[in-house]
């Protein structure tokens, strides 16, 4: 394929990515140094009804000659970042309490950072382990049962994340059946949605439940490609089942374990739907949730685009750190190809 046809074919997709991914990234970068808001003025308005008149105090956007809302858009430098990172408050907390995590987490950003990172790295080993176990189990199943089991397994993965977390929430909320079962067994009152740690546990459980099928499908497909002769040879040499798994199967599917890890890190890092679904925003928040929260209309009808941009930029630092090892590997391979 010559260069011209290549360019024509890739142009629409390339344009799409430039206009709606690359340019927004630059916009976010610039916006993060700006403060943008509708100018509001406080107006006293007299409101009359048949029972008499009242004066109301309203916040109304100021309109220009054309009837559009006037906006301020000023350069504020690092102010947005300072508002989010709150170094002064952090300093005073550290001075008063020492380096205690629970105190530092009273600042939203550090709480979000802590949650996002622990969430990403705690779910990872569970997803890999359960996915692997499930793949090994299904691989040893009778052929007739494989189809239905894969069908059931795919459901948690395919389900809308918000709905999936809602469905688990309904098992636990108030006197949901799992809560009442636990209360019956432990013989004490349990309120899952009253404590941050119990909600966090549920959120972790949900993500493991949701992603294990993905790991399973990949590992299961990989298990089909393991060389049977090598396993037989190992058997003849006296390797037991565990040794065969450890020294032949796992090394064979290692690239796919790396692949699942990478995808899981990317996806878990932008944890968001669970917080919506579980209604956990009072107790937990994640980096992506923070951005969303700034972008929503607040009570006075304004959005904090600048702060949202600043959180986005900070979030992306994490993405870059996750991607660095991958990119380094890709570049090394490309270089080897060239030589």
């Amino acid at each position, binding site marked *: 394929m010559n*260069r011209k046809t*290549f360019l024509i074919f890739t142009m629409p997709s390339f344009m799409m990515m430039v206009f709606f991914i690359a340019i927004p990234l630059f916009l976010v970068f610039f916006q993060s140094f700006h403060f943008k808001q509708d100018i509001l003025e406080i107006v006293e308005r007299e409101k009359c009804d048949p029972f008499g008149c009242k004066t109301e105090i309203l916040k109304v956007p100021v309109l220009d000659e054309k009837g559009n809302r006037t906006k301020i858009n000023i350069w504020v430098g690092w102010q947005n970042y300072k508002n989010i990172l709150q170094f002064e408050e952090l300093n005073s907390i550290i001075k008063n309490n020492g380096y205690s995590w629970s105190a530092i987490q009273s600042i939203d950003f550090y709480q979000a950072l802590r949650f996002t990172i622990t969430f990403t790295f705690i779910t990872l080993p569970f997803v890999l382990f359960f996915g692997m176990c499930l793949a090994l189990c299904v691989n040893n199943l009778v052929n007739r049962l494989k189809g239905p089991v894969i069908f059931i397994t795919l*459901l948690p993965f395919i389900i809308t994340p918000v709905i999936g977390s809602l469905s688990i929430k309904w098992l636990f909320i108030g006197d949901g059946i799992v809560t009442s079962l636990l209360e019956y067994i432990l013989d004490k009152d349990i309120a899952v949605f009253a404590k941050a740690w119990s909600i966090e546990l549920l959120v972790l459980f949900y993500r493991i439940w949701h992603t294990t099928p993905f790991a399973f499908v*990949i590992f299961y497909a990989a298990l089909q490609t393991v060389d049977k002769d090598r396993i037989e040879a190992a058997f003849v040499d006296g390797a037991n089942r565990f040794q065969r798994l450890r020294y032949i199967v796992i090394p064979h599917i290692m690239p796919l374990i790396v692949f699942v890890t990478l995808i899981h890190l990317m996806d878990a890092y932008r944890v968001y739907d669970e917080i919506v679904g579980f209604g956990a925003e009072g107790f937990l928040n994640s980096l*992506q949730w923070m951005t*969303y929260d700034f972008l929503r209309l607040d009570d006075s009808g304004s959005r904090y685009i600048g702060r949202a941009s600043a959180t986005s930029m900070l979030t992306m630092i994490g993405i870059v750190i996750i*991607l660095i090892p991958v990119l380094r590997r890709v570049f090394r391979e490309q270089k080897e190809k060239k030589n």
Partner: protein
Amino acid sequence: MESKLFNLSISLKVIVGISIILWAFIALFPLLWVFIMSIKLPIDSFASNPLNVIIGPNTLKQVGGLSFINLIFLCFSIYIYFKFFKSRKHSFLKINNLTNNKLISFLLLVLIFIALFLVLFLFFNTHIANFLNNIFEYIPFLKILSKPLIGFTTQHFVAVWSENEFYIQFLNTALVTLGVVSISLTVGTLAGYALSRSSSVIAFWLLVAALVFRALPHSVLVTGYLELFIDYGLYGKKIAVIILLVAINQPFTIWMLRSFFMNIPQDLDEAAQIDGCNPFQAFWMVIMPLMWPGVITTGLFSFLLAYNDYLVCALLLDGQSQTMVPAIMQYFNMETTMTDLVESIAAAASITLPLFILVMFFQKQIVSGLTQGSVKG
């Protein structure tokens, strides 16, 4: 020798069996429970005794329920549906012989499935079963067959879909997903094809860039354009959501389509070009007919992304233009009574049902799509 080697000992067999059953239970239970709760009155839905939720004594008393006859009818219709589903390839070929057009016969098959569903579950299971129930009630010994056993009410579904006009949200979701799937496939196949046939430096960089973009949190992309969309009156318009979702989906789409295209031997395009096709003709007339499995699989994942999206829709759509998933959350947050809560559960069940059917139909494609991306990527 081989069979001996790969057979498990009894104890391992037991462990495998138990873990599979346990997993199936954990995977299925929350979803099934949603369905069970949605067909009961609020008192039963939130009863703390699981048996009360399943049988629903209060629902039985106040509304009625399914009798033995109903249950048999239900099992029978599910059986027929599955039977018909299993023969789908056969029926497809039969229809194809009549129409000679793959697309039309595919659409016909889908229509038949929908019609069968409606006939079985909206007519056969309700009117005819109730008719039988009424007859059996007058026969002394068979009376017991028509006695309601399990509490059942569709009132929450009716309330959600007609009183609360959930169909508006359903149509919005349908439009958004349709737009996202069609645009991202059109744009993606072209790029995926070109990328699979080129080993140039630009192709390499494009793929790396796509990988990086794949990792970006979706909120970042919304942040960039939210202000502009609001200023230019695109807020609340579905087109804005469609474009953003297509862009978010694009990196994934081109990676997956590329790996599908790589399975098609390059000799084919060369042969086509020798026969006098230009590159576009070769792509459209020779390669694309072989690509339908890949296109369907990628389309499925685009569909899932658009259908499951909360963040973009919640930020860019409002009120009447809202899609189903954000709408149900607003519903859920507004809820004041137990009835409202069960209605939102019914709405959740309605959102889940299409996904159930999707997995049933396209299980093979989903699995192949997931593994395709990993083995080649």
